[in-house]
């Protein structure tokens, strides 16, 4: 593959939202309690909605037969530009809410900056999405605190989840090649500029949750933003893309 940087960047943001939205949707009908089943399904829909705006915009830039659907359902794992964190398996409820919290905290500061992008379309999508993400962050924070500072069992599960996910947080702040050029041009967010805000917020919530942050010397996994994914993405895509792959262009 290899679209121009501007398109790659838009796809990166779209893929982040779609993959996490899909992961969350796997909980629909399986939530621990009806009310939370609805809450997480709402978040899934918000994220898939954000992904649609971004894919539509990318498709307009590509300017051919490409549509939002072909971008979501027609690309292979190595074409996907999402970060590794969002494709990780749901695990238990604790791992799912922790993943949401870590990513929503990033999206919160990220969209805050993207609103000032020179690209008016991306800025508008950021502005609309930020309201949703503000709620996701609040929801995720509440759950992390509730379970981290909960029972012995819930605390142990959250510690385990943190151990499993922390190594994927470094990638959130390592710019891919397509991001570097665009951030100089004022289109992409300079990831360095949101790092300390993210670290502060995460430390604050983890502190309140009685959880110990990942060690500073944790080896950070990398590569999702450039198409090198963990084995989980392939399985996710196989399920998500099955229908369009089997019956291309199928509508209902």
């Amino acid at each position, binding site marked *: 593959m290899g679209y121009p940087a501007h398109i790659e960047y838009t796809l990166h943001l779209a893929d982040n939202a779609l993959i996490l939205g899909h992961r969350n949707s796997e909980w629909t009908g399986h939530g621990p*309690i*009806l*009310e939370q089943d*609805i*809450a997480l399904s709402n978040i899934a829909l918000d994220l898939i909605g954000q992904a649609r705006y971004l894919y539509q915009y990318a498709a307009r830039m590509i300017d051919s037969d490409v549509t939002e659907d072909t971008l979501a359902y027609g690309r292979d794992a190595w074409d996907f530009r999402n970060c590794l964190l969002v494709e990780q398996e749901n695990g238990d409820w604790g791992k799912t809410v922790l993943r949401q919290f870590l990513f929503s905290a990033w999206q919160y500061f990220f969209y805050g900056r993207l609103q000032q992008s020179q690209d008016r379309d991306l800025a508008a999508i950021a502005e609309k999405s930020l309201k949703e993400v503000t*709620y996701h962050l609040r929801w995720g924070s*509440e759950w992390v605190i*509730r379970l981290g500072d909960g029972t012995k069992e819930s605390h142990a599960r959250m510690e385990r989840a943190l151990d499993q996910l922390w190594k994927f947080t470094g990638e959130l702040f390592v710019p891919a090649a397509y991001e570097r050029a665009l951030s100089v041009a004022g289109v992409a967010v300079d990831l360095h500029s949101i790092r300390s805000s993210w670290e502060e917020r995460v430390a604050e919530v983890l502190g309140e949750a009685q959880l110990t942050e990942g060690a500073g010397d944790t080896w950070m996994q990398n590569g999702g933003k450039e198409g090198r994914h963990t084995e989980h993405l392939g399985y996710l895509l196989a399920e998500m893309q099955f229908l369009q792959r089997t019956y291309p262009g199928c509508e209902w």
Partner: protein
Amino acid sequence: MHEQQWPLWEVFIRSKQGLDHKHAGSLHAADAAMAIENARDVYTRRMEGVSIWVVESKFIHASNPDEAASLYDPANDKVYRHPTFYDLPDELKHM
């Protein structure tokens, strides 16, 4: 989770500034903060509200339906409790 149910909460939503909170339904939540969050997700998905109240259902005291006859029926034949029962003097305006 399954061995012990979370308590039940009654949800009241105000749909617009200036209107009253109206009973919207009930839901389960571990505490008040979660009840408000759950209410937001369950009852305001389609722009139904600008304000949410929640109260744990056990704190609501209700009248007994079996006593309806003694509680409400006596009001039936007391027409003088309605202002329309009274003849107003013609001199009285703006009533």
